[in-house]
């Protein structure tokens, strides 16, 4: 198993290898077998969602077959964040890419459920169950 890239608190927008940071959000990536596990920390909002979008575009461009987004460190997601995830989901349809999200806090899960997105996205209580779903 590849170790996650250490995350540093940075104040400037930057992309350093597989570490992406913004004011409120940090993204890091590791592999669990063949599956990229992307850990997001902080707020996904108007300011930070363009960075997530940019990151996910690289995944859809490379036709990433399976992707796990670990939301354990996500304290808040706004509608632009939801739209960013929907856009990625749309982009994966032609190549039948699989996406799973894990460890959403109750508050973040509410944001998905209030617009019935739990019916579209594969939401899991932890990374193990999400990985199992992606491998099934």
């Amino acid at each position, binding site marked *: 198993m590849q170790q996650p890239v250490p995350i540093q608190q940075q104040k400037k927008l930057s992309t350093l290898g597989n570490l992406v940071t913004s004011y409120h959000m940090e993204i890091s990536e590791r592999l669990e077998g063949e599956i990229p596990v992307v850990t997001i920390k902080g707020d996904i909002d108007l300011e930070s969602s363009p960075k997530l979008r940019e990151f996910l575009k690289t995944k859809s461009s490379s036709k990433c077959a399976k992707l796990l987004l670990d939301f354990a460190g996500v304290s808040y997601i*706004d*509608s632009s964040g939801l739209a960013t995830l929907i856009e990625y989901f749309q982009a994966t349809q032609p190549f039948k890419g699989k996406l799973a999200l894990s460890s959403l806090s109750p508050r973040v899960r509410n944001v998905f459920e209030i617009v019935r997105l739990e019916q579209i996205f594969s939401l899991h209580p932890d990374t193990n169950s999400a990985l199992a779903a992606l491998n099934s």
Partner: protein
Amino acid sequence: MSETKSTHALEVRGLVKKFGNRTVLNDISFNLKRGEILVIMGGSGCGKSTLLRHLIGVLKPNEGEIHVLGTDITKLDDDGLAKVRRRFAMMHQFGALLNSLTVGQNVALPLLESGNVSESIADLVVKLKLELVGLTGFEHLKPSEISGGMRKRVGMARALALDPELLFCDEPTSGLDPVMTAVIDQLTLDMVHKLGITAVVVTHDMTSAFRIANKMIMLFEGQIIAQGSPDEIRNNPDPRLQQFIKGEADGPIPLKLSRDDYIKRLLSVD
């Protein structure tokens, strides 16, 4: 959402507003905790709309402080006010939609004006917001092609477009049938209970007010005559409050000015 948070979404202290010699708001003080719904009620001309315009920073008081999301907006310049305004939204009484634009374009306006959102993301957010208000699939219609209740819901979708922390609603259920009123009320409750936003609702509709409020304020002639929980308001013996809650024609709330005031106003030259 990550900025410094006080426990109160709103704190108003000693607010006084005068138009000329007339005091329209007199020593208004109250606060509202985050995640609660405040209902402001009172008869026509009691100062509700003037108070609301102060809370959203359109009017500045002669005296007093208005802390919105932890910042005293009475001391801010235009740039500072714009920063706070990005964190709250206003749902106008009649939706205040632009008739030349479609429903979807109306909801997308704040997103595109923010400058941070691409059109494709804005289109998806519009669909999410219309789903929220039960209008999925209506994005291509014009405001003139939908009912008044639908226009109000589009107005709410637009107010929620940027995911505000604090939502101000001016008469959100006026002119709606009881079912649509319940729909709007439930939507307000969902926003607060599920998404954690705070709401300030100005209304005459007592059924709606008691259904949604955590806290209520009664304004009368520019002053707060009662504030408290719905139970405290219901049990408050003030006859002006009871007349308003029960919607009775007879009582201490005057329908007409006194004879002297009437003659004075009739014969005065502005």
